[in-house]
């Protein structure tokens, strides 16, 4: 099975990728570039993380970059209810991930989600986010505590990279929904041109050297 790992630059996603690489799965990394709502340091961290994973597992992990801040986050923020920004952001990431995975012949998406860890990762939000795609989603960390994830990250040498200072997402609303209902999200999504955005993003995906 071949997996497209959504790699953010944080602590969790490289650990999730590591666990599946350890089991022998083929992994490609896709980073959703959130600039200008984050900074250049995120990209550098992602490069370093993928390089570290390559060193650990002794194999190439192709890294791809897809624009996300513009046009996706921008379109959501301009047109939709602010409280759903994070859930809609993730639904769009998954959509791009799915189209990208199919394009390169991969079978599933891999994320570092852990239940209840942040606002976008409540059970209801995860459900609403998952419904955006039909492709299987692999979430190896779903039941892990943060401490367990941090310990693995330290053991494999990704922790020190993940904690390099980089700007948190600046477009996150003050009160993000933690209880998103799918029907509300679908209504909000009618306000943006989803297919057009996905096509635009897909046209700008590039492979990045690590």
């Amino acid at each position, binding site marked *: 099975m071949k997996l497209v790992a959504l790699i953010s630059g944080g602590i969790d996603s490289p650990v999730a990728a590591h666990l599946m690489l350890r089991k022998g799965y083929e992994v490609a990394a896709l980073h959703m570039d959130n600039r*200008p*709502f984050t*900074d250049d*340091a995120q990209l550098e961290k992602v490069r370093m993380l993928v390089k570290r994973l390559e060193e650990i597992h002794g194999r190439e992990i192709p890294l791809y970059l897809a624009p996300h801040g*513009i046009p996706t986050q*921008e379109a959501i*923020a*301009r047109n939709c209810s*602010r409280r759903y920004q994070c859930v809609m952001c993730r639904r769009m990431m998954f959509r791009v991930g799915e189209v990208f995975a199919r394009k390169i012949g991969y079978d599933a998406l891999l994320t570092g989600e852990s239940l209840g860890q942040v606002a976008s990762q409540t059970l209801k939000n995860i459900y609403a986010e998952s419904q955006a795609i039909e492709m299987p989603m692999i979430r190896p960390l779903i039941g892990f505590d943060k401490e367990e994830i941090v310990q693995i990250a330290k053991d494999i040498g990704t922790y020190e990279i993940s904690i390099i*200072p*980089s*700007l*948190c997402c*600046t*477009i996150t609303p003050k009160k993000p929904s933690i209880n998103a209902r799918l029907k509300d999200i679908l209504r909000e999504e009618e306000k943006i041109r989803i297919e057009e955005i996905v096509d635009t993003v897909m046209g700008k995906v590039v492979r990045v050297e690590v």
Partner: protein
Amino acid sequence: MKYRVVRLCRSSAAIEAIPEKKENLDLYEVEEKLRAAGYEIITNLGPIMVVKKDVEITIYDTGKLLLKTKDEEKAREEIEALRSYL
């Protein structure tokens, strides 16, 4: 506009400037002024705008600024230059 605090933000990756009192800026008006002053407008979403001259700056409608630099002196210069347009 006056700023109460200029400090490294929580992630230590940028400098944030907190206004003395919360504003309710019309960032579309601010955008016109900044464009005329030579700032590049990267995006303006209404409650948040991202602009650039020497340093990329996120401007919130509350008046809060986030400057993508860790150099506090440089940040203070940028804030001083920007302040009169807000």
